[in-house]
């Protein structure tokens, strides 16, 4: 590292991370994180992992403490209409008065004792590879509060867990660290929704959100990560998953907003017969940048993964999609599919998409494809030839492109929340939104 300012930048984060309070038993993880963060080479344009996503906006803003929240932070907050166990964090700070009473399966790190603490110590920081993921190292170093969901064997979590992360407007640099650990023992079932929102556009906040997931044998998790923030926030996030034998993960994610938003998904198939179904949408506009990096690692035979991401990129926005599938020599009979489709709605919009297949087993079925296109003129003509006005036809087609995935979302509350909000992105004129079907 030759650039002194970058060293200062990393140092600044380290100082703040060190000031966080946490239980003693997390000290080991934090120290290890701090060490990795300070020794890591800062990404440059030559770093493959960050090639199309410069971190300059974050370096320019830097890190800081979030000021106390204003009394009116809750105005204009719109959350899912769902019967769930709700946890609300504002700028990384837990707000019990807006949260539900926690069931036995949900424990905050600071309150963890006995068995819960043992589960955290067993898994926290173990699913994610912090040597490879720079911001996971920072998250480890910064860990103070966090939430554990632990569903015992053969139990079904009664209500979905709904974790809301609010970032309020801040002119000063401010940093929030979000940490979630989901552990489903063998045969357990659960549904978890993570929802990131942010306030008004004066925003120099940075959110570093990391989720680690262990899905036990024959267990099933439905996981949602909704990253719906305003224009200027900075957000780096990761979802890192270990799937045991015959485990199933049905995951959905959506990203909108942010001048820098980078979300990593890494899913490790560690037990035979595990299944992954991952669907994602991203809709950067204005000058936003959204980057999804996914890596599916098939380590054992007979696993399946199906991954579909659709993006609509408008204005001067930019999207990056990198989908890697790694198939270990032992992972025979793997079925892996990856599809990434992009729709550009402006001449200045940009997308960099790269499917990466690394296959070391010889008896596998893999399919992958990436497309970048503009509005489908044949489909447009078809709709117009039935009397539908061009403007409405365009909205129907654009919305249809994301609705292909949205209509498959299992949780009705997520569909009902996203449908009208996403529709509005395509036209402010409600007349043009009359024939969209998201319910």
């Amino acid at each position, binding site marked *: 590292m030759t650039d002194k300012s970058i060293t200062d930048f990393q140092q600044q984060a380290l100082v703040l991370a060190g000031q966080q309070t946490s239980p003693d038993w997390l000290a080991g993880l934090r120290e290890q994180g701090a060490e990795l963060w300070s020794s890591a080479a800062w990404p440059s344009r030559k770093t493959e992992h960050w090639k199309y996503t410069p971190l300059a906006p974050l370096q320019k803003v830097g890190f800081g403490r979030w000021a106390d929240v204003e009394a009116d932070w809750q105005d204009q907050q719109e959350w899912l209409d769902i019967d769930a166990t709700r946890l609300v964090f504002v700028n990384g700070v837990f707000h019990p008065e807006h949260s539900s009473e926690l069931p036995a399966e949900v424990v905050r790190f600071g309150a963890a004792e006995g068995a819960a603490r043992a589960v955290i110590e067993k898994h926290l920081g173990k699913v994610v590879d912090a040597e490879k993921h720079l911001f996971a190292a920072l998250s480890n170093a910064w860990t103070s509060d966090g939430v554990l969901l632990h569903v015992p064997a053969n139990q079904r979590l009664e209500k979905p867990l709904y974790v809301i992360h609010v970032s309020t407007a801040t002119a000063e640099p401010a940093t929030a660290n979000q940490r979630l650990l989901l552990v489903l023992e063998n045969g357990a079932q659960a549904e978890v929704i993570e929802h990131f929102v942010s306030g008004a556009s004066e925003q120099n906040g940075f959110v570093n959100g990391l989720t680690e997931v262990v899905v036990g044998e024959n267990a099933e998790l439905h996981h949602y990560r909704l990253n719906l923030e305003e224009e200027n926030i900075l957000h780096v996030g990761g979802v890192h998953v270990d799937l045991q034998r015959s485990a199933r993960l049905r995951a959905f994610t959506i990203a909108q907003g942010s001048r820098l938003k980078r979300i990593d998904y890494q899913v490790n198939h560690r037990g035979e017969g595990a299944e992954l179904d991952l669907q994602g949408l991203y809709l950067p506009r204005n000058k936003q940048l959204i980057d999804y990096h996914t890596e599916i690692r098939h380590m054992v035979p007979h696993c399946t993964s199906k991954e579909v991401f659709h993006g609509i990129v408008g204005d001067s926005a930019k999207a990056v999609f990198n989908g890697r599938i790694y198939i270990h020599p032992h992972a025979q009979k793997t079925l892996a599919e990856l599809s990434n489709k992009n729709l550009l709605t402006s001449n200045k919009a940009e997308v960099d998409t790269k499917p990466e297949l690394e296959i070391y087993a010889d008896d596998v079925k893999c399919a992958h494809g990436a497309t970048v296109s503009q509005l489908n003129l044949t489909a447009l003509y078809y709709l117009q030839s039935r009397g539908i006005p*061009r403007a409405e036809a365009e909205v*129907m*087609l654009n919305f249809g492109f994301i609705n292909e995935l949205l209509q498959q979302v299992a949780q009705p509350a997520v569909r009902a929340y996203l449908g009208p909000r996403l529709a509005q992105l395509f036209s402010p004129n409600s007349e043009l939104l009359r024939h969209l*079907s998201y319910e």
Partner: protein
Amino acid sequence: MLSIKDLRASVAEQEILKGLSLDIKPGEVHAIMGPNGSGKSTLGNVLTGRQGFQVTGGSVTYQGADLLELETEERAREGLFLAFQYPVEIPGVSNMEFLKAAVDATRKHRDLPELSSVEFLKLARETSKKVDLDASFLKRGVNEAFSGGEKKRNELLQMMLLEPKLCILDETDSGLDIDALQVVANGVNAMRSPERSFIVVTHYQRLLDYIVPDFVHVLAGGRIVKSGDKELAKELEAKGYGWLEQEVA
């Protein structure tokens, strides 16, 4: 109803229609036959105003007005309907909402009150029964993963819902087995009326056993080279198109 005079049209600067003339009166069924590449599909695309199909000469008068001045959607609302040879699959756009959008736009243009969702659902279900299309197809994406026959029946469903004045069937018989062909033909025949006209574009005489035309035209080299009654279709079936092309040349 429709008067085409000396129509010339190009695609990618290549002239496909080279002086086509045709007159259609209300209630008439005209079959247009011809070899591949003769311009049969181009005619439908030009009449519906598809982008990329450039009219370079001639005129098209529809119900007394210049058809070529209208946008695609305006032509549709004025009662012009093209049943596509290859209906487009549009995942994510529900067939039901697509049909409702089309009917809403058409009824608005005709100063008819909008149908409520319930009324429309009932109408769509009844009509889909008539074309032997299970009501579950209304909930799917537009033509999404429909078989060839299901797509053609969905075209017929749209035609029935929109009640057009002039219907162009572009090789509606292609890819259909005999049962599906009969369903489609019965649907078309049920729609025949003294006010409604049809242009049936086909490569084969087979369809015309079921939809009996008043006139048969042979399109070759971008022009109509021969016209006759339904007997002409049978002659073509027996002798092929070669003799006509030679006769013209």
